[in-house]
């Protein structure tokens, strides 16, 4: 049998239906690949026994011609998702040993549809980071390397385990979350597809909370079709999340292949930022040409408040994180460091349990919410956020979807940006606006940098118009014909 891990999610799905191989065979092929890829540090927990049990159950259904849309397909789950009785730490020391007595809604949906869980994927601690270097379990290594160079490269973040695992074929697809770019930027850094749907499309119930008004789940996958299949299963209303939206989930896969003839694609001039590398600019121009050649109409648009998006984000996100992370107190779960009284216990537990980036954000959040500063920072930021969202509403009067680069550069080396938090934050310059406005966005691999690393283009859609977004992404993917693969240097 040829290497089963080479198939896409759609390819494996169709082959399982035709009984070309079994889910147990497919799952074993992935467990072997995971075992041989420890050098990437993509998985923090492997659930081999559970995976094989789930695969056997799927095979029984498939044999009878039954089964859901993801029946028998092995997936990786970001460690931010609560998985019943399976270690869930958000890659933080403070959640040591936490085994949730419940399952997140998004993963419940995947198991409902027959998917198989391979294990939990590494991420930046509490999803705070853009390079997967803040994880308590150490950095994830990007399967991609620069040409003729063995320097270890970051896989992006915070969903770096998800992006690396999909790129290295350690799962068919992965769940991820995106608060400021944490699905799209790692997808761009690894030559994979990542979609952050509209805020409210997926339930946040059972996802370890970072910034509740920005957090949203989505998949990272091999291609646009696989992302569409995953999203359909992950999305949907949940009475346990009051911000999840009760509207039907379309068959996203059916939207693909309808072409982009007559579609108006907006190009926001403010995204041509100072100091943007020429190759990113050139990639963007190529993307414009591709969509034009496919029949789309290109429209220049303006999003005048773009430059204020990152500073807005770095008030709103830390403020919400400082509130959300107040629950880690050494009482209810995870780590406890004893102290001379209860306050001392709280302070010692939180000092030992949080890493430096998480501590930095909790302190900033505490400061901007503290007495006397709320109006100057948080209220002001939420007002600017209204203006940023309004920019998009204005732009969508003259276009249906927007095209931008996903990130301002290709992936960088491990350790190259950790000394300067601000330079790390700037990675999210093109993605963070989308979270602030609650819109859907997708990153599609579109080429290689001069150093041989993947580069992505981002499409941004209208609220709950994931179908147009995916249809356009599919056209972009067809034009880009990105089929480069990383050399499998990590195989043990």
């Amino acid at each position, binding site marked *: 049998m040829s290497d089963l891990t080479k198939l896409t999610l759609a390819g494996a799905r169709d082959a399982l239906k035709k009984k070309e191989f079994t889910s147990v065979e497919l799952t074993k092929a992935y467990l072997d690949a995971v075992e041989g890829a420890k050098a990437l540090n993509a998985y923090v927990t492997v659930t081999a026994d559970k995976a094989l049990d789930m695969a056997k159950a799927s095979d029984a259904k498939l044999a009878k011609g039954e089964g859901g849309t993801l029946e028998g397909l092995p997936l990786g789950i970001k460690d931010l998702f609560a998985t019943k009785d399976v270690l869930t730490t958000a890659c933080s020391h403070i959640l040591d*040993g*936490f*085994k*949730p*007595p*419940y399952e997140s809604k998004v993963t419940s949906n995947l198991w409902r549809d027959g998917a198989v869980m391979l294990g939990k994927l590494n991420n930046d601690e509490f999803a705070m980071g853009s390079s997967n270097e803040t994880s308590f379990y150490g950095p994830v290594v990007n399967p991609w390397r620069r040409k003729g160079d063995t320097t270890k490269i970051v896989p992006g973040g915070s969903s770096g385990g998800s992006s690396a695992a999909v790129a290295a074929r350690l799962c068919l697809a992965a769940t991820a979350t995106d608060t400021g770019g944490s699905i799209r930027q790692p997808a761009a850094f690894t030559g994979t597809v990542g979609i952050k749907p*509209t*805020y*409210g499309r997926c339930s946040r119930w059972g996802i370890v909370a970072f910034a509740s*008004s920005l957090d949203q789940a989505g998949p990272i996958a091999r291609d646009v079709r696989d992302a569409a299949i995953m999203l359909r299963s992950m999305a949907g209303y949940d009475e346990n999340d*009051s911000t999840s*939206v009760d509207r039907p989930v379309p068959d996203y896969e059916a939207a693909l292949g309808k072409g982009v003839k007559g579609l108006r694609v907006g190009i926001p001039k403010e995204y041509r930022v100072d100091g943007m590398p020429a190759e990113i600019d050139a990639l963007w121009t190529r993307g414009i040409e591709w969509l034009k050649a496919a029949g789309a109409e290109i429209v220049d648009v303006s999003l005048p408040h773009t430059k*204020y998006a990152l*500073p*807005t984000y*770095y*008030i709103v996100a830390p403020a919400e994180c400082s509130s959300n992370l107040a629950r880690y*107190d*050494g*009482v*209810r*779960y*995870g780590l*406890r460091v*004893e*102290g*001379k*009284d*209860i*306050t*001392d*216990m709280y*302070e010692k537990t*939180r*000092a030992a349990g*949080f890493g430096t980036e998480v501590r*930095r954000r*909790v*302190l*900033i959040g*505490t*400061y901007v919410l*503290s007495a006397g*500063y709320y109006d*100057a*920072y948080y*209220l002001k930021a*939420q*007002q*600017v*956020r*209204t*203006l940023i969202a309004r920019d998009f509403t204005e732009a969508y009067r003259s276009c249906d979807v927007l095209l931008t680069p996903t990130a301002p550069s290709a992936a960088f080396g491990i350790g190259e940006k950790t000394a300067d*938090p*601000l330079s790390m934050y700037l990675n999210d310059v093109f993605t963070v606006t989308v*979270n602030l*406005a*609650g819109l859907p966005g997708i990153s599609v691999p579109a080429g290689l940098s001069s150093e041989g690393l993947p580069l992505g283009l981002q499409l941004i859609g209208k*609220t*709950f118009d994931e179908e147009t977004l995916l249809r356009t992404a599919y056209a972009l993917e067809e034009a880009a014909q990105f089929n480069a693969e990383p050399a499998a240097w990590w195989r043990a």
Partner: protein
Amino acid sequence: MSVDQNTVRHIARLARIAVREDELPALAGELNTILDWVEQLGEVDTKDIEPMTSAVAMSMKMRDDVVTTGNLQKEVTANAPGAEDGFYVVPKVVE
């Protein structure tokens, strides 16, 4: 606005994170770099602009006011570093 070491000590106390005295200067520096950078929002005219309260315009769904879950004492305390008879155990808080 800039934060000094006393302010950092105060916010660390509010956040219930123990910070060593020798960490204060570096932390104050880092926080000031970030706070100076977000100061640029001051350029934006936000007079009469409503602060965003929901990323997507929607109205909350109502449900019947009934108990839908409960009796989960065992599950809720299962992960506690200290638990006894279905209660959390913490250092003594009342003398």
